[in-house]
């Protein structure tokens, strides 16, 4: 397993509230991968079992890496196509999304369901977790340029999916 990210989290999980926050963050990442509540819960649970058995660290980066590895193993066993090859792209500027009210959580959830796992994962890590492109590259074992390209394409794709669902007009 690649070296995990060093994130700014406490090493001592004697604080139960902090431990619960860690688990919620892990669950959100698992949801980004699977887009399915039960699968995400199973992934988090299995990853935690693995950490307990190996005596591994409860540091956030290590937990997310463990979840990702379990996700890949699970889908390999089921022989599903999971992560498709992504062409490396040159560094692209981040797309500035238009200010538009997409307060249709159902439409957003459905649109996210239409994305591939790696697309949701990259979007989640960048937008929700605030990871840099390099941090995402380290976690997903991809070149930084590929991550930037994927992020750019995913945002465009999500925007298109939402526009179709909401019928929103105007320049995007």
């Amino acid at each position, binding site marked *: 397993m690649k070296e995990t990210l060093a994130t700014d989290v406490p090493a001592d999980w004697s604080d139960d509230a902090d431990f619960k926050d860690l688990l919620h963050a892990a669950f959100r990442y698992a949801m980004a991968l699977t887009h399915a509540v039960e699968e995400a819960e199973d992934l*988090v649970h299995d990853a935690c079992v693995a950490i307990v058995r190996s005596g591994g660290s409860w540091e956030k980066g290590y937990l997310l890496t463990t979840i990702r590895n379990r996700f890949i193993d699970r889908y390999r066993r089921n022989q599903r196509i999971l992560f498709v090859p992504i062409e490396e792209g040159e560094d692209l500027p981040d797309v500035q999304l238009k200010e*538009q009210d997409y307060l249709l959580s159902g439409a957003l959830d459905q649109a996210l369901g239409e994305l591939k796992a790696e697309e949701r994962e990259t979007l989640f890590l960048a937008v929700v977790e605030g990871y840099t492109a390099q941090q995402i590259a380290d976690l997903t074992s991809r070149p930084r340029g590929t991550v930037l390209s994927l992020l750019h394409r995913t945002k465009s794709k999500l925007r298109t999916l939402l526009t179709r669902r909401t019928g929103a007009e105007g320049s995007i």
Partner: protein
Amino acid sequence: MKPEKSLEEQLRTHYESQRLSSSVIEEIRILRKGSEQERRAVRFPVRWLAIAAIIAVTIAGSALVLLPRSDRGAAEELAMIAARDHNRRLAVEVHASDYDELRAKMARLDFNPVMPQRAEGMSLRVVGARYSSVGGSPAVEIKLIEPSGGICTLIQVRPDDRLARIGSSKQFVIDGLRIDVWKEKGLVMALARTA
């Protein structure tokens, strides 16, 4: 005019509203707590282990045990899983009317589901089952119907080192459910019913 939210803000709101269920959090918390207790036991100096052994031997019939016990932790963890699976109400993957049919249809298990002796006399009717897991070990979640029409959930799993420590049968009440955990016929079982 209310400022519109960007797509990034909507994404953050969408994901940050998602939280792991309290039952799974509790399972993991118990799992972690149990492993920490085991590590503390291993780190005891040898002389203290000798003293503890002497005391345990000399105090006959005493319930005092100086080493941390983990069988209740393992049983409680399994009870939490049974409560979670019962409340999820997931559809069965295999329909069956008895344990023979279950065994024939569930080929991916590394054990044969059996009718528990504890269930004899309860007139529980098998409806079906689905594959499950307990701590990474393959398990079966069997759905049963009581004569009153109530649904029961029976988890059966081949015990790993941790579950093998479950000694006497135990009973828990979790989320309005009564859960019995016991060992029988080489398997660890948990039966969840409405309390």
